[in-house]
Structure formats: structure tokens, C-alpha cells
């Protein structure tokens, strides 16, 4: 499993001797040995820590919640982990409010969920215990119960895992999971129409923002679904370093799907030369798989700022989606 993660706790310095980080993921190196990977990570970390500390002071001093414009700016610069849970849950309805109806869950769906419980972040310190696996099972069951058109779709197990680890409160974590999945339910339905539609949308965006990549894709006759479908199904979990995922989710939850596209386009742009010089599918796949470990992916603060500067909005996405819907076969 590839997870490159840490959870910043200002003032208490990170324990690089420990095998796992604060969300329970294995560090990408053995803590005892020097590796290029560790060096790169430490270099990034020492540049990132001051940013984290500064952001937290600003949040405490300025209370950005009082004004939505200010809040957007603050969210994009990263929600300090002490505020993350609160902000993620900010506009999330509770199941107790009766927003969602309950439906019968077919046995087949329960069977599929059960199969995937031990197959979800099997190395994570917290998720590999029997108790947390059961919690994960209840979370996925709740999605099936409230969103019958989705039932269970593989990939949601990873999304649910991250939500549980961050929110760390079963009932509210489930609320958030159901809420976020319901906003993207056409991704996870029977034919995954939403995913295919959004791959068309991404294709159009790439044509505009990095045409050389599109030329290469077309030359090699590869669809974006094959390359980056997982990015969208799992909202970049398991494809990018965990801190980058959390920073992206801050924006995604607060502002919406435009952020999936912003990040995807920014990543392609940062790796454009390597990608556009590929001459075989083999090379292309290797380059795309390398994006997750690229410097652009690790330096999350810079990545978010670069993505924020792209002219991609929810409104432009909706227009492109309407066009794409006409183009995809059932």
C-alpha cells in the first residue's frame, strides 16, 4: 500500500522513530534506516511545518468562520487539524433529522461489504482491529441503507476509512459519509455513469489546460478512465500522500467537485513534460503512477495554491457535464 502521511501537531514534534503516523498509517520507510524517500519527506516536512504552525495561529486569532469569503480563503490554505472535524461537519445534516429514508439492504450487498472490510487499509494500525472493522462495516451499511441506488461500490471502503479516522466519532462520521456520497451518487451507481461522464469532462479540461497531454493520450489510444478513474472514485485517497488528500478534502467538502478537477489538472500540468513524451502505454502508465510520489504531489500547500489559480469552477464543470452526458452511451 502506498500511503505517505502525517498529521501535523504543532508544538509537539512528529516522532520520526515511530512506524506509524497519527492516523495509523505505516510510514513509507522503515524508521530505522535512511532512504531517499525519507530524506525527501523530511525536507518537505521541514518546509511545511512552519506553514502549519502559522495557519493555526491565524485561525485562532482571526476566527474565519464569521465570514464565508474569509473562510474560503482560510480553508484553501489548510484547516488546522484541531478544527478539521468541526469544519468538515459544518453543513452536514444528521441522519437523525430524517433527511434520508431507510431502505432494505440486499444480502448480496452485505456480503460484498463484509468481503472488503479486511481489504481496506489492511496495514492501518486503527483499521486492522476487529472493532474498527465493524465500525467500517456499519458505515458502509448506512450508505447502502440510505442510498439504495449506490448500495455498495468498491472504493467507498477507502473513502469511509479516511472519514472514520479523521472524524473519530462513529455517528457523525457516518453522517458525513452518507452526505458526501449522496452528493456524488451517480459515480457509484450501477453503471458508474457519473464517473464516465466526469472522465469526459476531465478530457475537455485537459484539452484546454494541457493539450500536449491530450495529444499523447489520443496517440496511444488510452482513456482517462484507465489512467485516473481511481482518483475520482476514491477522491485521491491511495493515489496521493495522505496530507495532500486531507488538504484537498478540506476544499472539496467546503467548495465541491471543482476541486477534484482542479487537482487532477494541476497534477497533469506539473508532470506534463514527462507524460507527453511517453511513447508507449507502458511508459505512460509508469509516469501516471509516479505522479503520486512526485514532488508536486508531496508539496501539498503549493499544489493547492496552484490548483486554486486554475480557472475551473463548479459552474464551468456543470456546463461541461451537460455536454458530456450527451456523449456517453448508457
Amino acid at each position, binding site marked *: 500500500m502506498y500511503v505517505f502521511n502525517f498529521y501535523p501537531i504543532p508544538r509537539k514534534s512528529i516522532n520520526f522513530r515511530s512506524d506509524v503516523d497519527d492516523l495509523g498509517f505505516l510510514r513509507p520507510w522503515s524508521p530505522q534506516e535512511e532512504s531517499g524517500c525519507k530524506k525527501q519527506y523530511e525536507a518537505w516536512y521541514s518546509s511545511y511545518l512552519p506553514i502549519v504552525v502559522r495557519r493555526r495561529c491565524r485561525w485562532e486569532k482571526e476566527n474565519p468562520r464569521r465570514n464565508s469569503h474569509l473562510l474560503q480563503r482560510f480553508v484553501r490554505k489548510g484547516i488546522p487539524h484541531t478544527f478539521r472535524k468541526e469544519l468538515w461537519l459544518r453543513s452536514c445534516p444528521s441522519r437523525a433529522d430524517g433527511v434520508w429514508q431507510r431502505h432494505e439492504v440486499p444480502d448480496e450487498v452485505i456480503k*460484498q461489504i463484509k468481503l472488503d472490510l479486511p481489504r481496506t487499509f489492511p496495514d492501518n494500525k486503527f483499521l486492522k482491529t476487529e472493532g474498527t472493522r465493524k465500525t467500517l462495516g456499519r458505515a458502509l451499511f448506512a450508505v447502502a441503507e440510505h442510498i439504495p441506488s449506490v448500495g455498495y461500490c*468498491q472504493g467507498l471502503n477507502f473513502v469511509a476509512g479516511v472519514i472514520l479516522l479523521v472524524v473519530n466519532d462513529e455517528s457523525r462520521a457516518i453522517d458525513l459519509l452518507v452526505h458526501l456520497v449522496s452528493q456524488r451518487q451517480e459515480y457509484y451507481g450501477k453503471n458508474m455513469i457519473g464517473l*464516465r461522464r466526469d472522465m469526459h469532462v476531465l478530457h475537455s479540461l485537459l484539452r484546454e489546460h494541457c493539450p500536449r497531454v491530450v495529444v499523447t493520450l489520443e496517440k496511444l489510444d488510452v482513456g482517462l478512465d484507465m489512467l485516473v*478513474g481511481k482518483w475520482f472514485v476514491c477522491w485521491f485517497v491511495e493515489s496521493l500522500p495522505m496530507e495532500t488528500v486531507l488538504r484537498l478534502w478540506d476544499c472539496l467538502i467546503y467548495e465541491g467537485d471543482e476541486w477534484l478537477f482542479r487537482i487532477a489538472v494541476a497534477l497533469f500540468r506539473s508532470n506534463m513534460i514527462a507524460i507527453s513524451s511517453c511513447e508507449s502505454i507502458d511508459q505512460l502508465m509508469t509516469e501516471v503512477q509516479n505522479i503520486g510520489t512526485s514532488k508536486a504531489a508531496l508539496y501539498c500547500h503549493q499544489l493547492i495554491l496552484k490548483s486554486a489559480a486554475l480557472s475551473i469552477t463548479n459552474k464551468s464543470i456543470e456546463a461541461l457535464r451537460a455536454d458530456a452526458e450527451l456523449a456517453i452511451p448508457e
Partner: protein
Amino acid sequence: MAARNAGTARPGGPNRTCQFKLVLLGESAVGKSSLVLRFVKGQFHEYQESTIGAAFLTQTVCLDDATIKFEIWDTAGQERYHSLAPMYYRGAQAAIVVYDITNQESFQKAKNWVKELQRQASPNIVMALAGNKADVANKRTVEYEEANAYAEDNALLFMETSAKTSMNVNDIFMAIAKKLPIGPAQGEPTGTVDMNQPQQQQKGSCCK
């Protein structure tokens, strides 16, 4: 137990290198990713993460007269990912359809995949059927004879495999490698010619 390096490439050998696209299909949790992980890295994980979309890996094997590089697409098994599958088997020269010998339903699904490939994939695709998890024979619900007879009727390569013990894992890939059309590079027909799919016929032999 098959040695891990059996059949891997000798660098700098005099022979040609051919690339072939191979796709793995089959129900979720039958062990597709585990077979690939065993073949490519010699590893096995008790809890293998579910595959989302598909994973791509490569591995090279050596035959007497050629080196074969497999470009392996390991697909997601869940039913709803089925709509994405044609992308992966389009233009593939080989396919391994996997079922779990302890799961009768997965064998039925495997038959459906075979049918779909016979209809939609390239006509000269080399197809293999793998009955995986052969190490848990005490829970077997699909008999060897039954699967073998089915494979014979449909002209499939067939082996029971175990990603856990590595039984028959390299062997099934090697058996496929031996059936692939490695040349001569031009002209010679390598299978049934389907007049409706002229481009795919070209891809049948791909030595450079």
C-alpha cells in the same frame, strides 16, 4: 514450488522482445491481484486491498526464441466495474479468467466472462482459465474435472493455481507466453481471421 525467477528475462539475450497486453477478469476477491503480485513480485498478502478500476503492472518472461513482456491489466471484480471492462480487454492478446475453487458462483461468473470475450475480444486472443485458491482444497465446491471439461470445450488453457503457495502461477503465464504468436513479424496468419476487425488482426503479432 515454482521458483520465482523461473522464466524471467536474461538481459541482453540475442532474441527478440515482444510485448503483449494481458487482462485479468473475474469476480471480486477470487485472487486476481494476488496472482499478479505473486507473478510479478513473488509476494502474497493475506489481506490484499480491493482493486479500484484497474492496476497496471509489467513482467518479462523468457522463452527459447523470444523474450515476452506482459503488460498486465488487473481489473476490479465488482459487477458495476463491468461497464469499464471492454476498455481493458480491447486489443488484448491474452486473458486470464479467474475463479475461486471454493466458490461455485465465481465459476459461473468466469463462464460469463469467457462468453463475453468470445463475442467481443480480439478473435485470436489466448484465453486461460485459472481455478485459484487451490490450497484450500478442503473447501472446494468446483471440481477439477468439471472446470477442465469446460475449458476443453472452449479451447481454453486451464490450471488450478494458488497465489498463496505459488502453485502453477508462473506456469500459467508461461503457458500463455508459449501460445502467443511471436512471429514471424509479418504476414503469417496466427489465428482465425475476422473480416470485421481488420485492425485487431494486425495486433496479433507484435514483435518489433
